[in-house]
């Protein structure tokens, strides 16, 4: 065993021991399955405290520079922490937009001042971030953003509305894509990128209820909101480039995220364990030949995803479509999970019809809720259909 391997192995043991003692017990109220579903103050306080505890122990943003609250380690250490969080069924690390998109973006493209001002508070959970990209009339077509930011002295005056603002009602800051110029030849060139405060006059976040019955999304309204011109990130009119970089972090195409534990991890084994408890026609469900054949497909999909993760690290096995595996991960992974959860939710006989809140629901309605919740993954960050276009155009070279 090499020194590095030995160090990582020792670290894994250390983290596992810490988790054993510090992962909070079930609080007795419903916790969100993903960061997209933090809907009550009670959940927020609980998750903020948990994130702070993890960071204080030195286990969050480990590969980020120590001057900004990280540990300056190799990313392998954070990967181990994330794995252990999953294994210990730990509550999610909820400040995901800050941890996984804004933080890496600032470390990559931000000024020293911006890094010093924001990064550490993202890790500690002190400041919550949200994202203002999508608008009510422009979901997938980001270039068409209509929210206006007009320069007025030392401020920009913002008017318009953003939607699907996850954590918007709790957030301190928003990464805001707004139009500063309506007269450009290309629509993209009129966009600017702001690190915008949320708790100011003229900004209101209205919670939106979801198909799960829970909250977490908001519609955010800007009414003559004045944000300091110093909040502009990059150049005025240079917002598209910054936004595209943000999406690379969001989609996991580029690494640097502080924690992958943004949702409850559901593995193929959880699915099979659940189905193994169920019966059909008075026999164990897993003895049904149709179910068995379906499960072969699910296991193969899960295994293919793991294998392609391994393959990405071997350039000789990716030489002909160099970015192909990375660019198709979201397309494949999120759809596989949606179907896997729907399948499990639908094999419970009459209990399939029960939902969270019913005492007889299988595992408290976990699978039904997880299935609905999963649409956040197949729609957010570019829908499956947009992902297919991306693979078609950027990997296969097909025309727009």
């Amino acid at each position, binding site marked *: 065993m090499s020194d590095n391997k030995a160090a990582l192995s020792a670290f894994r043991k250390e983290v596992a021991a810490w988790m054993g003692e510090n992962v909070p017990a079930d609080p007795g109220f419903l916790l969100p399955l993903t960061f997209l579903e933090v809907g009550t103050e009670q959940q927020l306080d609980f998750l903020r405290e948990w994130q702070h505890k993890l960071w204080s122990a030195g286990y969050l943003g480990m590969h980020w520079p120590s001057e900004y609250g990280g540990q300056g380690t190799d990313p392998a250490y954070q990967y181990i922490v994330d794995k252990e969080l999953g294994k210990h069924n730990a509550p999610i690390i909820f400040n995901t937009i800050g941890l996984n998109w804004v933080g890496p973006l600032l470390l990559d493209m931000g000024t020293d001042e911006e890094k010093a001002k924001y990064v550490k508070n993202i890790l500690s959970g002190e400041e919550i971030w949200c994202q203002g990209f999508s608008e009510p009339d422009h979901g997938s077509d980001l270039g068409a953003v209509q929210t206006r930011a007009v320069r007025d002295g030392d401020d920009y005056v913002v008017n318009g509305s953003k939607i699907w603002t996850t954590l918007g009602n709790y957030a301190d800051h928003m990464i805001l894509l707004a139009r500063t110029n309506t007269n450009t030849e290309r629509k993209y060139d009129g966009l600017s990128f702001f690190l915008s405060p949320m708790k100011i006059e003229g900004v209101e976040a209205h919670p939106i209820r979801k198909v799960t019955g829970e909250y977490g999304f908001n519609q955010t309204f800007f009414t003559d909101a004045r944000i300091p011109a110093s909040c502009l990130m990059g150049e005025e009119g240079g917002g598209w480039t910054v936004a595209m970089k943000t999406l690379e972090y969001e989609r996991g195409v580029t690494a640097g995220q502080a924690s992958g534990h943004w949702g409850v991890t559901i593995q193929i084994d959880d699915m099979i364990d659940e189905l193994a408890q169920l019966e059909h026609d008075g026999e164990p469900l897993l003895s049904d030949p149709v179910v068995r054949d379906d499960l072969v497909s699910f296991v193969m999909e899960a295994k293919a995803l793991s294998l392609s993760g391994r393959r990405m690290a071997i350039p000789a096995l990716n030489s002909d479509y160099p970015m192909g595996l990375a660019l198709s991960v979201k397309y494949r992974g999120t759809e596989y999970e949606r179907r896997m959860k729907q399948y499990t939710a639908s094999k419970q006989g009459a209990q399939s019809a029960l939902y969270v809140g019913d005492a007889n629901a299988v595992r408290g309605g976990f699978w039904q809720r997880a299935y609905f919740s999963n649409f956040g993954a197949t729609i957010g960050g570019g829908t499956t259909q947009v992902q297919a276009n991306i693979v078609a155009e950027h990997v*296969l070279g*097909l*025309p727009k």
Partner: protein
Amino acid sequence: MSVIQNVSIGLSEEQAMLLDVARGFVRDQAPIEVVRSHLETETGYDAAIWQSMVEMGWAGIALPDTVGGAGMGVGSAVPVFEALGSGLLGTPLLSTTLAGQLIWRAAGESAADWLGRLCGGSVATVALLDQADWGAANLGVALNADGTLSGAKHYVSDAGVADIFVAVANEGGAPVLAIVERDALSEAAIAPNTLIDLTKRAANVDFSGVVPAQVLRGESVASALRDTLLLGALFTAAETAGAADKCLRSITEYLKTRKQFGKLIGSYQALKHPTVDIYVGMENARSFVYHGATVVGDEALSVDAEVACRMAKVSADDVMVYAGDRSVQFHGGFGFTWECDSTLFIRRAQWAQQMYGGALHHRKRLASLLLDNR
């Protein structure tokens, strides 16, 4: 233990180089026009190309160096078959490689003479099927007390050009391997099949009255046979994954150049999205194939290896059938013609999907492997 089990993928530097070399060879020596020129010839391939492959050591690519092989491990055949598939290049390499595995696994170095001949370019093939069922015992040919064989084998790959046949036979209820040389068979004993894939050849072979040159017996025969069938599935999957990539490239090329209603047809999502699914399926098949190449070895195959071979075959078959089918459809009227390479792809898909067992065969066994020992 997770049902996902082993997900290792490793490729030695030698194997990575081999993949490059093999792809280059196929691109240079066997462009599609060359393949097409042999579609309706008797052997189906160019003898000079086969000779070059033998000279590069590919006839013994999966065999240990102690018997004249390349000594790079059995998984090293995978890059070669992927490359052959990517050119739809036939040749008797698959048959010869599997016959070599069957002999090696049953008899080891005691069969060095036979294996040396294979490595030197003698074409060999496994005569397995009594009828159509890859999952049957296939012990219909008997080895009689007087040392003669009786009965016939069906769908024997490359039988028309084989120098050496390894026939699976029944001796008092146990499987044995009867090694038969071509000159022991009469002309009439070999009756060619009309295959759906014109880059491939097979025949029915009647072994009645023939005395084998050697019979391999013993406990190792059954496991050698089982492992050879799994490797057949893996190597066919590698070839099929290569063919699926070739088919995908043919589709994308057409979608980038063909205009209808004033637009390149590749801009229509009804064509674009299924093409992405072909791409994703092809990459999955390749991942399984490379994983398979990593976990198979010269020793008896492990459960991980068995799972890998079966998943590789299912995955490659699925994507190739879809790709070949969509290739004809997406090329429109032209796709329906003999001139269009879609013809070759859809025919390869239908051939490959039954070789060494189809999806039904492997999925049934995977269900047991994955679900019954948890």
